[in-house]
């Protein structure tokens, strides 16, 4: 377990690192798990991300997979002395991630980070609900480890379109994963290793309960009102999913931290491309732009104007 001591907003700690690929293996049909070894990586916390150059660090900038870096949430971090291992769980969707999927152990990649604001674990809320969908699950894995280590009662809610697009490994046989949404069990290896029970659902019912994670999570909240009253909800995934999760939390007055995804070029607050609309009563239109990379990617759900929300102009 790695509780990082330094302030997550200590900007002096960020840099460009050369990392060695230690492993790069499929987790399911759509996802790979890349393990990177770095020396002297700065303190980092769940919710933060790195920008990986999906091209040969020594090659010309137009060779290889992609020109600008690609952002990836940190799915795990292990330290041994000065050495650090990062888990990057990614879905192959474009030229950058396609290039990543071809990496063999031993080759080097350029990593910029850690970047962004992490999740917060308020001391007065002893319960942590982690709600992740598809490629939004990786930051939840690391958060589960950290939250459990500081004594939170953690429950993970995991969703995907189908079993082969879920970037998690069932513990034991797949058909042993329980269908009940009200009884989380130690069914997924990535969470069970930290003693964190999980509920799993897939859109097509190929693993766990058939259904979408916001519905499953909302029904869990309804049946666990006392526990939920002491919880913070952490969520990452497709924005329609985040919006539904956030709405359930707001109706019950449960704080909800959402980890957003945006197209970004730099990740350092300079290219101004990853804007998020944030509610602002002092603005004539009721919102202003913040940057996903430096103001986020973790935001208070109540502040976010959702991408599909009709709001202002």
């Amino acid at each position: 377990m790695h509780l990082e001591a330094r302030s997550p907003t200590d900007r002096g700690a960020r840099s460009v690192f050369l990392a060695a690929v230690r492993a790069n293996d499929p987790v399911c049909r759509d996802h790979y798990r890349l393990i990177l070894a770095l020396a002297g990586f700065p303190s980092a916390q769940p919710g933060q991300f790195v920008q990986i150059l999906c091209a040969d660090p020594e090659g010309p900038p137009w060779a290889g997979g992609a020109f600008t870096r690609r952002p990836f949430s940190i799915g795990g971090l292990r330290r041994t002395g000065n050495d650090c291992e990062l888990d990057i769980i990614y879905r192959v969707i474009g030229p950058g991630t396609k290039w990543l999927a071809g990496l063999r152990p031993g080759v080097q990649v350029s990593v910029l980070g850690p970047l962004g604001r992490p999740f917060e674990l308020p001391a007065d809320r002893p319960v942590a609900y982690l709600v992740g969908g598809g490629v939004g699950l990786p930051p939840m894995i690391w958060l589960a480890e950290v939250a459990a280590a500081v004594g939170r009662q953690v429950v993970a809610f995991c969703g995907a379109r189908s079993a082969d697009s879920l970037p998690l490994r069932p513990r034991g046989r797949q058909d042993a994963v329980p269908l009940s949404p009200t009884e989380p069990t130690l069914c997924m290896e990535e969470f069970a290793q930290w003693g964190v029970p999980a509920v799993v659902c897939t859109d097509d019912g190929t693993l766990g309960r058939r259904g979408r994670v916001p519905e499953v999570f909302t029904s869990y909240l309804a049946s666990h009102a006392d526990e939920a009253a002491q919880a913070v909800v952490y969520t990452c995934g497709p924005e329609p999913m985040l919006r539904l999760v956030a709405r359930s939390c707001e109706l019950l007055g449960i704080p909800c931290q959402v980890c957003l995804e945006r197209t970004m070029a730099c990740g350092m607050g300079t290219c101004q491309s990853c804007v998020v609309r944030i509610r602002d009563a002092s603005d004539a239109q009721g919102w202003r732009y913040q940057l996903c990379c430096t103001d986020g990617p973790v935001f208070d759900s109540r502040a976010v104007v959702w991408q599909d929300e009709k709001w202002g102009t």
Partner: protein
Amino acid sequence: MRPTYDTRTAPTDTGGLTLPVGRRMLAGMESSINLSTVDMAVRIGRLTLRNPVVTLSGTCGYGDEYGPFMDLSLLGAFTTKSVTLEPRRGNAPPRVVETAGGMLNAIGLANVGLERFIAEKLPVLSALGVPAIVNVAGHTIEEYVKVCRTLDAQPAVAGLELNVSCPNVADGLVFGTDAGALGELVRAVRAEVRRAVLIVKLSPNVTDISRTAAAAIEAGAEALSMVNTFVGMAIDIERRRPVLSNTTGGLSGPAIKPLALHMVHRVYRQVAGPAGIPIIGMGGIVTWRDAVEFILAGATAVGIGTALFIDPTTPLKVVEGLRAYLASRNILAVSELVGRLERGR
């Protein structure tokens, strides 16, 4: 008057570059000179830069963003994100899209506005220990004049760069593509700016960039920065819609380097060189080799923009690569390389 070149001068190494360095060569020295001996300083108008590498507007924020990644005081100069009289939100996303060898952006001059820039950003900028060039944009001549006059009164502002070429706002290209309108704008600003060095950033989206360059110089520009981004677009064939919410954007990155290099060469030969006006050359520079090309084409200084997004330390690598290149060829000052392109084969 520029020295005439003796093309029979032996190259100083096997690189094949035949510079007339004999006069400046250390007597009897066969091998390369010491790195620390190379004079990297250049002059942009009345401003002396410790080295010729500057960071470019819109790619390095207001100064503190890259602080954790590099020692900004090692730059030749720092150029801010555009400042306008009033704050601007900028365009709706998507604002950027990657293209072959580069990217399109349509940020739309999102910035905090003049008042907050002076109150919040300028103190940070002035503490960087590097000359600060403020990029200024506006809707009207009056707006440019007001912003420039106000900034000229700020001692922390070493230079003012007129952004007359933003392709991503409705009125952005008017001044940049019409030599008459550009001359009028530069003259109006020139009359109000007494202290800061006045730089005009040229648009490449013109038929003949020498005409706008000449108009800017004639109206009192002390330096030209060139070039801004090229207007382009990308289409999402699934949705049959432009990728960018603004429809078009400005293309930057290595994809534009040959185009930008040609324009620097053309303006240096036809206008800026004869007038003795320095050029800050930019467009797709990623490595020190790119920088050498721009300097040979006629740029006195070079700007790093899009490459910062990939590696914020790029300017420092360019400075060191350039210094080593000069030392290995026994060239004692980077200013000696400006425009020293050989003719013929």
